[in-house]
């Protein structure tokens, strides 16, 4: 019933945001705050690891879409997802929104490709 947001550096210039728990209408505002903070500090190449998300809803998904939009407005900015077997993956597929994101299957995959 909580969302945990952890930040690491995966690769120079790229911030890795690890989400764990519920990404729902109640909790996902936390994610938005973290993203807004990062952008303010000039970090707008964001990789979001969704593997540990146990539940997501349309509001949580909206937050991911919002973050995608905000980072893309910056020159060189972007948001990439790591999702493989997670709930988030299935949710993205059902809604057809997976097409909007570049998706990696795991962190090393993201590391190599970016």
């Amino acid at each position, binding site marked *: 019933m909580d969302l945990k947001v952890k930040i690491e550096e995966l690769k120079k210039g790229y911030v890795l945001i690890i989400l764990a728990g519920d990404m729902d209408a109640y909790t996902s505002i936390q994610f938005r705050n973290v993203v807004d903070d990062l952008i303010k500090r000039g970090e707008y190449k964001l990789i979001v690891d969704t593997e540990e998300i146990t539940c997501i809803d*349309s509001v949580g998904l909206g937050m991911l879409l919002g973050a995608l939009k905000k980072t893309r407005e910056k020159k060189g900015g972007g948001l990439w997802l790591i999702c493989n077997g997670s709930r988030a993956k299935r949710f993205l597929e059902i809604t057809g929104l997976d097409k909007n994101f570049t998706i990696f299957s795991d962190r090393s995959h993201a590391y190599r490709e970016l």
Partner: protein
Amino acid sequence: MIKSAKEAAVIDLDLPASVEYLVIARLITSLVCKRMGFSEEKAEDTTIAVAEACINSIKHAYRNNQKYVKRVNIRYLLYQEESTQQKLAIVVKDFGKGFDPYFVQLYIERADVERPETVGLGIFLIKTLMDEVEYDSSPARGTQLRMIKYK
């Protein structure tokens, strides 16, 4: 309190219309699905649908109005008789401003996933994930959404 429906076991949940309590609606839904013997996928679909229905009641039904009693009511009807097609019916009800059922039809048909910022994701999900969906909405009585998932 309910008047038992002979063929179905009935569970009622009544929550404040606030995102804080979504987790309770989700948890009960997934337990009820387990009791029904649903597959994990069906249970997940149903849980998402109930959550989206609650989110709509929270986001839209009581917007800009203090006079409503801001509650969301969820009724589960478990039809478990072996002889018939087993199913779970769920009614999500709010007492808010309602909306025109004509538009529901539009939202369902459009399902505009290409432009997700526009309206339509919640009802689209509900419609996609459940087997039967029926809206009954009016300004006087709020919105009642009846959905069915077959086992």
